[in-house]
C-alpha cells in the first residue's frame, strides 16, 4: 500500500497574511460596530433626557400655575391655618391646665370652723401643696388633717397630707402649722 500524504502547496507566509487580514477585518468591524452602538446608546439616552427635561419643565409650569391659584386664596388659607393652630393650642392648653380653684375649694371644704387657713402655695404641675394655718385646738387640727383626705371632702383631691411643722404661739394662744398635701396625679386637671 502506498501511504497518501496531503501536500500543502500554499506557502506558510501567504497563509499567515490571510489570517492576519481576516483578524484585521474583524477588529475593524468590531471597532466600528462598538462605536456605532455606543453612539446610538448615547444619542438615545441624550434624546430621552431632553424629552424628560421638556416634560419636567412643562410640569413645573403646571405647578407654578397651581401655586398662583393657591396664592389667590392666601387670606382664607391664613385664616384656616390660624384656626387650626388656635384649635389645637386650645385643646393642648386646656388639657394641661391646672385649675387652682379646685385646691381652694378642697381646702375650704375640709377646714373646720375654728381653724384659720393663713396661706396656701400652689405650683403648676407640682403635686405638693403647702397649707399654712393656725388653730387654738389640736383636736381641730387633727380634724382638718382627717378632712383633707376624707373622700367626701378634701380627699377628692388630696391623697396624702403631712403635718410638717407646728409652732405654739403663746402670745396668741394658737398653734401655727404647716401642712404638705399631695394631690392626685392630674387632680387639678379637668
Amino acid at each position: 500500500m502506498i501511504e497518501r500524504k496531503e501536500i500543502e502547496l500554499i506557502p506558510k507566509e501567504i497563509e499567515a497574511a490571510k489570517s492576519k487580514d481576516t483578524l484585521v477585518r474583524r477588529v475593524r468591524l468590531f471597532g466600528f460596530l462598538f462605536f456605532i452602538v455606543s453612539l446610538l446608546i448615547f444619542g438615545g439616552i441624550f434624546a430621552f433626557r431632553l424629552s424628560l427635561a421638556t416634560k419636567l419643565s412643562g410640569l413645573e409650569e403646571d405647578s407654578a400655575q397651581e401655586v398662583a391659584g393657591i396664592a389667590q386664596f392666601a387670606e382664607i388659607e391664613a385664616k384656616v391655618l390660624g384656626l387650626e393652630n388656635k384649635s389645637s393650642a386650645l385643646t393642648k392648653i386646656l388639657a394641661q391646665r391646672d385649675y387652682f380653684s379646685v385646691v381652694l375649694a378642697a381646702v375650704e371644704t375640709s377646714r373646720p370652723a375654728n381653724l384659720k387657713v393663713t396661706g396656701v402655695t400652689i405650683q403648676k404641675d407640682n403635686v405638693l401643696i403647702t397649707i399654712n394655718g393656725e388653730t387654738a385646738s389640736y383636736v381641730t387640727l387633727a380634724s382638718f388633717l382627717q378632712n383633707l383626705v376624707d373622700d367626701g371632702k378634701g380627699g377628692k383631691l388630696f391623697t396624702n397630707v403631712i403635718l410638717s411643722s407646728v409652732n405654739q404661739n403663746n402670745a396668741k394662744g394658737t398653734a401655727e402649722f404647716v401642712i404638705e398635701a399631695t394631690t392626685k396625679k392630674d387632680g387639678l386637671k379637668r
Partner: protein
Amino acid sequence: MDAATSLQKQDSGRTRTPFASFLASSEVRTWGPPIVLFVIGILLIVFGTIPSWGKVQDLQSDIVAEQDRIVALKEKSRQLLDFSDQSVEIDKQFTVFDQAISSESQVPELLTQVQKISAACGVKVTTLQFGGEKEKTSGKLQEVRLQYASESSFSRLTCFLSAIEKASRLIEMESLRYSLSVNEDTGAQIITAQSTLLSYYTPTPQLSPDNPLTFSLSDERFLKNIELLKEFKVY
C-alpha cells in the same frame, strides 16, 4: 546608487516629523482606526452615556415628585375653594377662637381683661405687670407672662380664680401663693395673693403652597372646642 535610495533623496525635500512617520506606519494604518473608534466608543459611554443616565434617573424622580406635587397642589386648591365657599363661617369661628388665643400678644388688652375680672370679683389689684414672652412650641404658640398681686377676702379670691378659668382669653396660673393678714385697725382679714399668670397667642402662620391643609370645620375636636368656648365669658 539603487532606485530606492534615489526616491528617498527625491522625498527629502519635505522632512517628516516623528509623529507623522508614526502615523504613516503600516501598523497604525492597520490597527489605528478600529482602536480609535473603540476608544471613542468607550469615551462616549464613560463621559456621555453614564452621566446622562444618572441625569435621566434624577429627571425621572423629579418628574414623579413634581407630578405628586401637582396632585397635592390641586387637592389644596380644591380644599381652599371649598373653604372660600364657607368663608363667612370661617370668619365667625376665627373671631371666636381669636378671642381665646389671639394672633398677637395684645398685652394691654390682656392686662385690661385681668383688671376687669378682678374688679368684677371685687379684688383689689396691687401689682399687675407684663413679665415677658416665651416661645412655647416650635413657633406656633407663644406664652405671655404677667405678674399679679392682689388683696381681697377669701371668697373674692375664689371668685377671681373661677373667673380667670372661664375668661374668654385663656389665662392660666403658673403659681399662686396667698397669705392671710389681719388689719390691726379694723380687725378685718385680708388675703394677699401673688400669682404668675400665663396667657397665649398663636402668631400669624407662614403660608407655603406645599404645606397641606389638614383642617376641617367638621373635625370632632374643633367642634368640641367651639362648645367649650361658648362657656367662656368675655370681659
